[in-house]
């Protein structure tokens, strides 16, 4: 019985192997499409693609022109809509100030040891993930090099070497205009950093409490079922710089909601947690808890990566603010009022 089963299995295996070997070595090539047909089809495909690209570029340019035009005629039509209540406006601008100071004092702190490592310690016989270095060669020429994952990038003028307030190129991890204090001064940078870290935490707790109590969170930030359904369309709209007009501007779109929720409930808490994780005192709360994040030096690296992510968020945020009508958006975050262009007015 067992022998027969083995035989059948063996036979099948042989058949499969035979057909495989035929596919690889045997058989012959059959010309399915002649050369003229192939040429015709390819040229058509390329032509159509070029046409589409042209149209996309045209629409993008048109949109950009519209955006630029909108700079000159903000608030001339439509009606004012109260979009941002006072507490949200105050907390928004406090956050702008606090995060700017935290970033700049943080870069001053990072300058004291301008290398990021992965793992529990910095000295494991493994090179850093990222390292900023300034060098001076025999001829007295100064240059900055940033090494990321073993690759050197020339970063003279920004990282490693940059022009100070006197205009002379000097060896410095980060340019002086990007650090608080302007001079490398670890003790003072730490004072700034921790003081404003406390304010950021207070502001964050206030915001989350306010948003929960006032239902700002549920009404304005949590995506609705409809939002989720519009996700794909919203992504396409964003890529084409097509933005909601008319009544739709009274609500955040789904990408906006997700971005804000991501920053408020993921990036900022992670940032604070990684900051606390670098504290030798808090590490003792539950010895080894920072190993969840692969150890203290990884925690320090994540703290920096999250900072970069926040910078990226701010860049996209400011970009969207500009392309969707800078003055209208900016004013609404100061006075609270956003001018809604009624559909009839819209071109």
């Amino acid at each position, binding site marked *: 019985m067992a022998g027969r089963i083995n035989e059948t299995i063996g036979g099948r295996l042989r058949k499969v192997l035979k057909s495989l070997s035929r596919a690889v070595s045997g058989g012959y090539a059959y010309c399915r499409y002649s050369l003229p047909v192939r040429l015709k089809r390819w040229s058509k495909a390329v032509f159509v693609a070029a046409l589409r690209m042209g149209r996309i570029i045209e629409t993008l340019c048109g949109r950009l022109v519209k955006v630029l035009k909108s700079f000159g005629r903000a608030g001339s039509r439509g009606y004012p809509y109260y979009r941002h209540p006072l507490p949200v406006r105050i907390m928004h601008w406090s956050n702008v100030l606090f995060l700017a100071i935290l970033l700049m004092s943080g870069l001053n702190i990072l300058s004291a040891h301008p290398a990021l490592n992965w793992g529990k310690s910095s000295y494991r016989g493994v090179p850093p993930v990222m390292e900023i270095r300034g060098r001076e060669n025999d001829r007295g020429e100064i240059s900055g090099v940033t090494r990321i994952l073993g690759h050197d990038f020339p970063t003279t003028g920004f990282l490693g070497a940059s022009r100070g307030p006197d205009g002379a190129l000097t060896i410095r991890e980060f340019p002086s205009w990007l650090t608080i204090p302007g001079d490398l001064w670890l*003790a003072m940078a730490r004072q700034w950093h921790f003081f404003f*870290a406390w304010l950021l935490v207070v502001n964050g707790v206030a915001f989350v409490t306010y948003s929960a109590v006032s239902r700002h969170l549920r009404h304005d930030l949590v995506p609705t079922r409809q939002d989720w359904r519009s996700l794909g369309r919203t992504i396409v709209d964003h890529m084409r710089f097509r933005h909601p007009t008319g009544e739709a501007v009274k609500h955040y779109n789904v990408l906006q909601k997700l971005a804000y929720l991501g920053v408020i409930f993921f990036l900022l808490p992670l940032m604070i947690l990684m900051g606390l994780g670098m504290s*030798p005192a*808090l590490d*003792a709360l539950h010895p080894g808890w920072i190993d969840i994040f692969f150890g*203290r030096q990884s925690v320090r690296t994540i703290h920096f990566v999250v900072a970069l992510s926040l910078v990226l968020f701010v860049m996209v945020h400011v970009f969207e603010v500009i392309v969707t009508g800078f003055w209208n958006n900016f004013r609404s975050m100061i006075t609270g009022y956003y001018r809604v262009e009624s559909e009839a007015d819209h071109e």
Partner: protein
Amino acid sequence: MSNDDKLTRRGLMARLLAGVSLSVLGGCDRLTGTSWFPRVLGLGEKATHKAQRLVVPRKAMAQEFLAIDLSPQFRSNGTSIPDNPTYRALAADGFAGYRLEVGGLVERPLTLSLAEIRKLPSRTQTTRHDCVEGWSAIGEWKGARLSALLEAVHLKPNARYIVFLCADPMEEDGTSPYYESIDLEDAFHPQTILAYELNGTPLPIENGAPLRLRLERQLGYKMAKYVMRLEIVEDFSRIAGGKGGYWEDQGYEWYAGI
């Protein structure tokens, strides 16, 4: 409302925006230079100190590591060999003549040789050293429990801080010796030791021979190297710069828990 009016308002906003960003960029240094602003910033340090003492239990232990986590070479920072003739003479003799003095607010002042310190109850711990600059290194330390030493000298009731006076001068002219201070809560913590061994060998000079403090729940600059004398005090405001440590006198936090 006329068009001009709006333009002015917009101009005002632009000026406001420019003003805010400029004041963030340039004004910070001016604020740093005032006498009052750093004091305001100092409130953050006080809040951190209070909050961490509140949250972290007194006897919470710092993380300890395994032999595989040890740094191949334990980084030396700050002084690598004290520029002090008395110290150099002691080092040349293998610290045979070294005596640790314990004085101040104690009932029984003590002078201990290295051999006597080695006879005190000891502790061996593999811990991570976190420098204020940002780097960490892991080493295995063996040393006398500070609590045992303090019990032997009997603290007076008004004793509040342990001051560590060191052999390494921080100025080139040989003045301004390194010093540090810790409170009794940290002094009696089980992981607070006066280390005489690193990675199973006598403490190297660049890491603070013959004796250095290990204070595992704070940053590296608190862990004084080349300790010569312990002074138990009620208040450190009249020692050196009055801030309780060499780096504290340069503006660093006395409580270095973060």
